[in-house]
């Protein structure tokens, strides 16, 4: 389980790693929320490329953060999911709600586009 955070402009980038299950879900939830509060970032990017395993507990954290960001009129992007993780995302019905893309570059583009629109 690992977590790397980094904020830029109005967005917080989180790189999640390892197994994203019951135990790590509560750790991730707390840390992400704390960072969102501290940095006062509006947008959230989650890099899932280091996630080896995810189940509904892990997914719950993602969906919960989406609701929070959405409530604050921000944009959320997740990227880099491996095929197993992608399948889980697909079945969950989360995909139409959240921006899903392949790379950090694409993810930033989505954020930038939103920021421009707002200006």
């Amino acid at each position, binding site marked *: 389980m690992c977590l790397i955070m980094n904020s830029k402009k109005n967005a917080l980038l989180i790189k999640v790693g390892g*197994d994203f*299950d*019951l*135990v790590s879900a*509560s750790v991730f939830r707390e840390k992400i929320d704390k960072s969102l509060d501290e940095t006062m970032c509006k947008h959230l990017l989650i890099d899932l490329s280091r996630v080896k*395993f995810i*189940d*509904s*507990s892990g*997914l*719950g954290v993602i*969906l*919960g953060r989406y609701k929070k960001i959405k409530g604050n009129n921000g944009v959320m992007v997740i990227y880099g999911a491996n095929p*197993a993780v992608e*399948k*889980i995302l*697909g*079945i*969950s019905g989360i995909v139409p709600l959240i921006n899903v893309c392949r790379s950090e570059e694409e993810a930033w583009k989505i954020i930038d586009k939103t920021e421009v629109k707002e200006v």
Partner: protein
Amino acid sequence: MENIVNNRIKLELLSKGENVSLARITIAAFVSQLNLTLNDLEEIKVAVSEAVSNSIIHGYQNETDKFITIIGTLYTDKVEIEVADNGIGIPNIKIAMEPTFSTDPERMGLGFVFMQSFMDEVRVESKVDYGTKVILSKKINSTKENIAVS
């Protein structure tokens, strides 16, 4: 055709969060004795993770000193995994298994959805105040790869 038991394992775990991954790793090592695809393996891991997490969160309401019993059985053509707790039980199994149904506002009600998507059969036996048993089974065969998932 009679079902021949090729191997069986019984695992008793305390209802602690860190034992969810332990259950996953053990069952993954166990079912790897069959010649299954990486895809099958990943799917079994998710299903086990959901069932064990449910016993901890719902069955035992996050109490950490209770026991969960997992029995794995390898047949020639399928694997069966039973996850049982002696927790609060489920009053209405049919409703509990509906997608997005959850008694916990923090959760999404996708546990049974994943179990059913990833296994060929999910049977649930439960009695209020006595506990819950989830029996997950998955056919293992070489043509499996041709069946589209989800």
